[in-house]
């Protein structure tokens, strides 16, 4: 972040400050968002390997179904999400499509793209993968989309203005302080996440569009618990802790400080690491479909889930998908026990039925069961 500048003219002209003038002068309204400063580089994040791994897995295989990052304050949860956005390789979209439809896609297209004759090739564009923030205090109409205000008011036209769910299609939807999210917004998200589409029916405004997004939530458990339905939506869950050893802590502060003093220079010094990481993601995505999963591995995964008593098949499916993504990230041809072991705490830790009288954390229960099944 740039050094703080008070909006006070230094020289003689006694121009008013923003504050003094805010009431009188309409605040500046840029329709285009201001230039985003370069975010903290993903590769420069010290430690927090599980969190980084969970993000990479979702970047490689979005069907893993999102990441919940829960834990101590000041562990760089939001930083990591914003860093991920900058790290992801660009994607091809149909030019002008508000839903970022895939030019080569057949399923989950918006109405306009589906209506296009198969013979015609659409104009395509390259776009950064959207990582959309759902800010606290957002209203329902902005989440699902609503009447286009500008056109309705000035032209009297009934047009749909896509909301955040549309923007997040094929990308990520990030909710910081997810446990403080209003219940009715949680319901909307659950509905969209389950069906992969967003449906709006209102006064002759009838819109249905794809809304496939990877949900990323972060929060501090001390602010309150998360609804189990929402918890279950997240494919992976990570528990982040403040690093305890001094050298790591020093390194965190040093990098953070260097970044805040000169974001651009800092980003530059990490550029090659970032590119390396990006290439890994691209390579892993390409090899994902060729990673094989043996019956024995599937058997192991099932055993693990049964032993832990996780409800439903979702956990098992996520476990296998995550292990496969990890295998392809590491350039392995098939999923092995080692991959399962590493992703099991992420994929299953939040799915255990809670026993309030058992003080051992779910993390330990997963670890114990892994050792029982795979051997120490």
């Amino acid at each position, binding site marked *: 972040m740039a050094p703080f500048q008070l909006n006070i003219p230094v020289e003689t002209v006694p121009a008013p400050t923003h504050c003094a003038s805010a009431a009188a002068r309409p605040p500046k309204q840029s329709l285009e968002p201001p230039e985003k400063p370069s975010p903290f580089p993903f590769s420069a994040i010290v430690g927090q390997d599980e969190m980084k791994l969970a993000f990479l897995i979702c970047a490689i295989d979005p069907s893993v179904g999102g990441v919940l990052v829960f834990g101590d304050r000041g562990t760089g949860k939001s930083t990591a999400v914003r860093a991920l956005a900058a790290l992801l390789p660009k994607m091809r979209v149909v030019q002008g499509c508000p839903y970022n439809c895939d030019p080569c896609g057949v399923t989950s297209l918006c109405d306009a793209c589906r209506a296009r004759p198969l013979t015609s090739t659409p104009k395509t564009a390259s776009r950064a993968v959207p990582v959309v923030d759902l800010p606290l205090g957002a*209203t329902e109409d902005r989440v699902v989309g609503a009447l286009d205000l500008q056109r309705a008011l000035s032209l009297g036209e009934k047009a749909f203005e896509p909301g955040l769910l549309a923007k997040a299609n094929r990308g990520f939807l990030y909710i910081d302080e997810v446990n403080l999210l209003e219940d009715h917004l949680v319901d909307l998200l659950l509905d969209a996440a389950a069906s992969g589409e967003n449906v709006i029916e209102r006064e002759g405004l009838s819109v249905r569009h794809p809304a496939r997004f990877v949900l990323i939530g972060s929060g501090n458990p001390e602010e309150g618990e998360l609804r189990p339905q929402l918890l279950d939506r997240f494919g992976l869950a990570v528990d982040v802790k403040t690093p305890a050893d001094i050298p790591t802590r020093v390194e965190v502060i040093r990098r953070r400080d260097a970044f805040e003093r000169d974001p651009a220079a800092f980003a530059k010094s990490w550029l090659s690491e970032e590119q390396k990481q990006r290439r890994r993601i691209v390579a892993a995505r390409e090899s994902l479909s060729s990673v094989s999963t043996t019956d024995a591995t599937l058997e192991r995964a099932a055993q693990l889930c049964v032993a832990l008593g996780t409800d439903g098949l979702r956990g098992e499916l996520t476990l296998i998908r995550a292990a496969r993504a990890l295998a392809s990230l590491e350039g392995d041809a098939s999923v092995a026990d080692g991959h399962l072991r590493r992703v099991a705490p992420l994929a299953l830790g939040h799915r255990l039925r809670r026993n309030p009288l058992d003080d051992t954390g779910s993390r330990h229960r997963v670890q114990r069961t892994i050792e029982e099944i795979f051997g120490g």
Partner: protein
Amino acid sequence: MSESTNPRSPWERANYAAALFAVDPSSCGVRLRAGPGPARDAWLEALRNCLPEPAPLRRVPLGIGDDRLLGGLDLSETLRLGRPIFDAGLMAQADGCVLMFAMADRLSSSAAARIVSVMDNGEISVERDGLARRMPARVGVVALDEGLGDDEHPPPALLDRLALYVDLDGVSYASIGSQLFTRDEIADARTLLPSIVTDDKAIEALVVIAAQLGVASLRAPLKALIVARAACALRGGARVDENDIAAAVSYVLAPRAIRIPAGAEAQEEFEEEQPQTQVPPPPDQERDSSLDQDRHDVSSMKLEDLVLEATKASIPKNLFAFMEASPTFRAKAERVGKAGAIAPSSRRGRPVGARPGSLRDGRLGLIDTMRAAAPWQKIRRSMEARADARPILLRPEDFRIVRFREHRETTAIFVVDASGSSAMARLPEVKGAIELLLADCYVRRDSVALVAFRGTTAEIVLPPTRSLTRAKRMLAGLPGSGGTPLACGLDAALTLAESVRRRGSSPLLVLMTDGRANICRNGASGRTQAMQDALRSGTQLRAAGISSLAIDTSPALQTQANPPVLLLAQAMNARYLKLPHVDAVHVSNAVRAAAQSR
């Protein structure tokens, strides 16, 4: 430039903090712990004198709605001009300004979350009323913390981001003196700030000291570094030195300390120092026991040691005394953050926004309804209602109902007899019941608290909380032994119940005892008097109108005509429940039933 980099009197300390903040407002942030009064007014005046003219200082009232804080559709302008007009909220208007949050100790965690997201990003992102905006919002935050006890403080998420801690407790009216720095000096420091050099030694020193003080959050050393830089700029330096680090330690790290650093001899050395009246805040970080292990690492790091030693010598001499004098500090050093607990949130049935709905479901939110209808006016008029003379055409879909806190939440206060050997059997089940209740409280937004009495006193083991994580941690070390000071337990419960009620939640007291009181209110032993005292305390609870449930845990064999707990229940006007074999599921069900039937 003034040379007072190590100010001594409470006023000078506070004044110096104002200057530090004014050098770099958007990265620092101040927690100003003081009631309203001349001292606080003087400090705010001093801050105004530090900031450029006209002072960009605005006050944000408690309970400000999202539409004002974040912004939204400007209804009247939109209707007048026939195009969407965005009304920027206070946070966006305050880009480059300083916002004062009134009664920050009563801020809800959701309000705090909105504020900290702006502080973290330096910009505000608004997705409201059909409008999406992102605007720069580099704001300096002053939290006016009027909390009284340890339990009343701003939400921890906000505290984590406020670098400076200023307590005006020791500032008398007479001691209020002049400014340490002029506005121009501070402006110079602000210009100097970007060029200040910080070497790795400074960073290492701050991290090591933070660890030694038991400060877990990594934001603390980061904020300390920013403050050290501001201190360096204030004295016109070019490179952060030990004095700057000492200033950062005393304003940023020491107030968050939860233990005295390894070199405890320093503490004795400073004990003759005049007693300090300032009280450090309850730290919002929990004690991280893993930090203990780092002491060995620390001793092996020669360089840090040197810096640390140098820093120790220059830490304001009163630091250790200052920490010692603090009741919070002492209490905290051994036991996990007893305070840090309550995240105060608005539960007074304050409206919390609006959502679509039919009028059957709630009260009409007029403005929100108009806002929803506004964009449609032109369309509706042109399509179907050209001749309609009504100025605004409303449809049922426009209706917005005001959301209040859905339920008036209940705080179940467990008052548990932790005396003698029977406690051994009872306590684990009580813990279980609390955790069971919390495990599903996300639906009903209820909280749980625990008062335990044993020996000669009662203490609040678990302040009202909704967090299972926190409850688990605090219940972990609850011991049981000693006599049965029933009256003390009930008195402590009454105090807590009243404070819960002041926060707008309704208390439900759950007493669990075998009723065999043997310690009187004054701490003396004696069964008859102890029971008399307990009955009197029970009557007070009844008078205060606290609803309660008395669970009799005496063994089933003892069939007395008038079991003491029954007598007590009558005095308290409590529901009586005999549960000789206390188990977690029964207790939590009973409490749930009692909470619902009220």
